[in-house]
């Protein structure tokens, strides 16, 4: 049975609700009362969530292999005939169309669900801030863009959402635009993302000219109309032998798209914008820079998994970048003191984990971790927000402490999230992290090792944060100390719901080894089947139960070790962190100053481009304009001087010479002009005589002629 129903026919409403309220806010928000803003903006996201749940349940009603619903609203971009490789012409079309399959179903639920909770939380958190309507307008606009991104049925419409979320991120990071650091961070995020976007665009174009289409799949569209899709084109190209496993062009597509993913999902070398992005209000960090937007790269790679499965080299690159990013970011999180910065590096690290999963071909595991991470990382950020709220805006861990009983709900939910991210059984993170590590070891041992070490570091820095904030004595200044208070219910209720999800959220992927059936992976399977199963897409050996148990025990042990170490450092203080830092000052500084990567980028790239700009500006003024244009002008003037000289001395000179000569000759002639009759009469006589003398011998002929 094909999926049908009211909600599936109205997929387009899911992104439209938040768009409508966003527009309303940005046009009339100023005139609306706060309560109106809250109801409209939170309500529209809630409505999207309801429509999302409705659509997904209708999708689930269909047989597993038929769970695809696709609708095309209109043809969006129609620039005419395009020549694809091999010389064929196709009519290039980018639809405005939506696709709901198990993959986008997961994303829609995560985005609208977590998004809704964060919106509710924001009502409390942002209640005292100026620009309330503007904040919610941007947040709703973000929901629109993010939902467009996950529901898009083609790469270009996905790019619309992709850029849209980037824009909202820019606007929300720079929400406190009076602060220079905030607007700097927003700009940095946008520009770094743009570098990734250039890769995305080129990957998109290469897909278009290679496969002739950018629609993900033709499934779910009426067959008679002859729609094309990447999946189908890939299938037939492989069957026809024009493309094969490991084809360079597929590798190129995969790598280019991954450049885009690395930008959006903050992977090496484009991760630098995410820590700075913490300048935004905390709910923004939770929604955009932890739970949803930054996972867009992961989603995109999974969406294009059919191509990646045929590009083994690209997959390896993804895996290595992911693993290295995971451990690199985790190392920086070890020593930071800003509560949000730690969470930011942790996010980068966890995103690295997801890419590690994708790189080893465990696409479902990557999405699984994306989902559980959305729960516990949103919770961590919101919890951190609640802490900051309680501490009157303080973000420095060194000025916290002893909050466990003062803000009990926040503290307890935060503990749950910390356990979840550390991978402790049976919290959500355990299942997804374990799945990834299990898959990694099948592929490359060293990748597993990196992931394994990262897991230990994660447990350490998260519990370091937890102990520093909640245990021991308060190190806060008096003013903050006096005002410590638990947050209002609008903030704590979302915390509690997310805490619940951080516990049970992983159970949906309960592995077979522990008596489950990993329903999550089963659910996603039809989407990830790839274009051609037999061509050598990454296959997994089913390893024995013993090995699986062993791995599980190992990951639990390293998590435990990390927690124990943090406990000794920051709770019992048996080991003084300061002494460790003093022992290896170089290492400590390197970590604290984030490997000086920002400084390096500034020195190597940013300042060089600016220098180039200055230099080219001078070149433009002095060489092109000065030498070229003004030089031509000078030449012209010089030429005109020469020609003036020529005119004056040669042309005119010749003329004057003639005149002068004429004048000269006139002197003797003038002597004759006496004006006396007698002189003239004499001259006439003389002349007559000369004439007669000269013509005399001809005279007789002359006279004869007269006769």
């Amino acid at each position: 049975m094909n999926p049908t129903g009211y909600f599936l026919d109205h997929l387009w409403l899911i992104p439209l609700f938040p768009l409508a309220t966003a527009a309303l806010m940005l046009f009339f928000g100023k005139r609306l009362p706060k309560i109106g803003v809250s109801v409209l903006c939170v309500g529209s996201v809630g409505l999207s969530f309801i429509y999302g749940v409705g659509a997904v349940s209708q999708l689930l009603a269909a047989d597993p292999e038929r769970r695809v619903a696709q609708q095309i609203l209109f043809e969006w971009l129609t620039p005419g005939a395009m020549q694809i490789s091999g010389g064929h012409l196709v009519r290039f079309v980018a639809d405005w169309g939506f696709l709901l399959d198990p993959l986008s179903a997961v994303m829609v639920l995560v985005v609208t669900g977590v998004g809704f909770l964060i919106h509710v939380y924001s009502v409390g958190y942002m209640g005292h801030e100026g620009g309330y309507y503007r904040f919610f307008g941007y947040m709703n606009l973000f929901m629109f863009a993010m939902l467009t991104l996950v529901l898009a049925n083609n790469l270009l419409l996905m790019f619309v959402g992709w850029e849209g979320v980037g824009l909202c991120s820019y606007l929300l990071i720079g929400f406190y635009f009076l602060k220079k650091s905030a607007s700097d961070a927003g700009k940095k995020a946008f520009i770094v993302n743009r570098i990734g976007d250039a890769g995305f665009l080129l990957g998109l174009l290469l897909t278009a000219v290679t496969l002739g289409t950018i629609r993900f799949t033709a499934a779910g569209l009426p067959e008679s109309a002859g729609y094309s899709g990447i999946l189908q084109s890939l299938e037939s190209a492989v069957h026809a032998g024009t493309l094969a496993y490991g084809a360079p062009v597929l590798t190129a597509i995969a790598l280019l798209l991954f450049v885009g993913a690395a930008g959006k999902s903050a992977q090496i070398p484009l991760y630098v914008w995410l820590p700075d992005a913490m300048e935004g209000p905390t709910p923004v960090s939770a929604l955009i820079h932890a739970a949803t937007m930054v996972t867009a790269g992961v989603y995109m790679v999974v969406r294009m998994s059919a191509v990646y499965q045929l590009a083994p080299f690209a997959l390896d690159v993804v895996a290595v970048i992911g693993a290295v990013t995971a451990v690199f970011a985790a190392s920086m999180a070890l020593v930071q003191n800003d509560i949000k910065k730690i969470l930011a590096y942790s996010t980068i690290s966890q995103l690295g984990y997801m890419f590690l999963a994708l790189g080893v071909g465990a696409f479902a595991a990557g999405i699984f971790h994306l989902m559980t991470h959305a729960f516990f990382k949103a919770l961590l950020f919101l919890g951190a927000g609640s802490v900051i709220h309680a501490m009157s805006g303080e973000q420095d861990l060194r000025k916290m402490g002893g909050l466990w009983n003062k803000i009990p709900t926040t503290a307890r939910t935060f503990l749950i999230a910390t356990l979840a991210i550390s991978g402790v059984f049976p919290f959500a993170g355990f299942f997804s992290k374990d799945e990834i590590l299990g898959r990694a070891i099948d592929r490359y041992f060293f990748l597993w090792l990196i992931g394994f070490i990262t897991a230990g570091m994660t447990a350490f820095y998260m519990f370091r944060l937890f102990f520093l904030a909640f245990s021991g004595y308060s190190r806060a200044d008096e003013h903050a100390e006096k005002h410590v208070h638990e947050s209002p219910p609008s903030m704590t209720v979302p915390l509690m719901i997310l805490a619940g999800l951080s516990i049970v959220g992983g159970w949906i992927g309960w592995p077979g080894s522990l008596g489950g059936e990993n329903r999550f992976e089963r659910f996603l399977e039809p989407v990830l089947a790839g274009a051609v199963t037999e061509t050598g897409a990454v296959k997994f050996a089913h390893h024995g139960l013993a090995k699986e148990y062993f791995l599980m025990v190992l990951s639990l042990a390293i998590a435990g070790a990390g927690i124990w170490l943090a406990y000794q450092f920051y709770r019992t203080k048996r080991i003084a962190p300061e002494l460790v830092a003093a022992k290896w000052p170089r290492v400590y500084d390197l970590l604290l100053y984030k490997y000086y990567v920002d400084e390096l980028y500034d020195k190597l790239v940013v300042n060089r481009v600016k220098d180039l700009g200055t230099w080219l500006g001078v070149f433009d003024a002095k060489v092109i304009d000065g030498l070229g244009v003004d030089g031509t002008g000078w030449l012209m003037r010089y030429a005109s001087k020469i020609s003036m000289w020529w005119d004056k001395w040669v042309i005119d000179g010749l003329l004057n010479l003639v005149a002068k000569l004429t004048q000269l000759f006139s002197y003797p002639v003038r002597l004759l002009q006496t004006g006396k009759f007698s002189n003239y009469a004499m001259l006439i006589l003389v002349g007559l005589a000369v004439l007669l003398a000269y013509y005399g011998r001809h005279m007789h002929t002359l006279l004869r002629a007269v006769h």
Partner: protein
Amino acid sequence: MDFFAHHLLSVILYTPLVGALLLLFVPRESEGAHRVVGNLFGVLGFLVSLPLLRWFKPGWSGFAFEENTAWIPSIGARYHLGVDGISLLLVMLTTFLGMIAILSSWSAIKQRQKEYYILLLLLQTGMIGVFVSLDFFLFYVFWEVMLVPMYFLIGVWGSDRRLYAAIKFFLYTLAGSVVMLLAILALYFYAPAADGTRTFDVPTLLAAAQTFSDPLKVWLFWGFFFAFAIKVPMFPFHTWLPDAHTEAPTAGSVILAGVLLKMGTYGFIRFSLPLLPADAAMRAKIIHIVIVLSLIGIIYGAIVSLMQKDMKRLIAYSSVSHLGFCTLGIFALNPNGLAGSVLQQINHGISTGALFLIVGVLYERRHTRLISEFGGLATPMPNFAAIYLIISLSSLGMPLLNGFIGEFTILQGAFQVSKAWAAWGSLGVVLGAAYLLWLYQRVMFGPVTQFANEELPDLNLREYATLVPLVILAFWIGIYPKPFFAYIERPVQRIVEQVNPRFYQAERTQAPTAEIPAVAAETK
């Protein structure tokens, strides 16, 4: 009505001229009357051009609304007007931006209003004439006529270095035109004269040029090239632009960026492409040169604008970058590149026109264009901040706004020819975000740093009236560009068939695409 229908282009062409003539009879003393009449004819000029959109059938690939009568029979010059989908959009852009430019002068121009509006209307006629002329003689007349009012607009109503800028603009453009005149005369004399009469008719001469030898075509190509390259302007012929833009009054900059530059790209499409030699090697060489200049323009313009201190100069250099995209698309010689280029010309008119209006808004309030004089304006001017942001995003190619559609389609066209071209072009996309957002940050964000900026009034009704239509158009093209593509699809296809027949041949000679059914099915 019948007369109107048969002489639609003439009506569009001369409506501004009639306005200018009428203004001659408005006494200088009647304060304010000039701008009312000027605006009236600005709006009227736009209104009479609207039937073009309505009556033009997107399926038409040839010239429509033609008027063709004898003009100077002794030399064979005719009064021949006509538009295809490409020039139609450019005419619409001209009348639309013209209307807005006139409106934007309402309070900005206080001296010599009478002359100002007369010149602005004259300019309008000159520009429309360039786009609708199908006779080389007529074309050249309009091409040069348009220089004069612009010269005075910059030279009289400009800012400090106006005389330098005006003369530079005039001489620079004139230098190019003279070479073009030679090329036109060469075309005129080399074309076989049927029954002894020569002609300046554009379609006839360009058809005749197809029989010319390749070396001759190359000479003719470069002859036209200089005139158009200066007008566009392409690197390294661009240095008149920053000066002219910076010194011109707001309306002048809007028209200059919005319309005047498009005369160059239009010329490339209409006149230069058919003069490309048939020989593959010669052709490849020419295209290589032009493309490299375009790519340099894209990146060079972007990098130079990054470090400008004057807002108008920054935007002027950004035009060099954007127009580089337009020429890149044209010389990709395929439907995507050309269609994208035409659309991007319209987009650039909208976005950059609006950016100049925005600088104009600030200039009228503060009488400076230096970036360092501003900062934190989002606080006193929130609505201005919103519109300025949208315009910046449209210019830097944010999806769902117009710029993206053009840039993407151009890159798509370029990508089909050479992946390297597209890769270099995409670098311009990255830099575009950098200079525009940095400018925005320095002007709008942060605390208000200057006392004079603290109480700046937000946009007034008239300023809304100039900016909002552009914002709406930017969204329209970004969200639903299909109608725009519909106008240019057929003419573009005709041009590609004519100048790059191999593009379609590749398809015809190949076997039906049986092995990739999904792809073939898309070729409706």
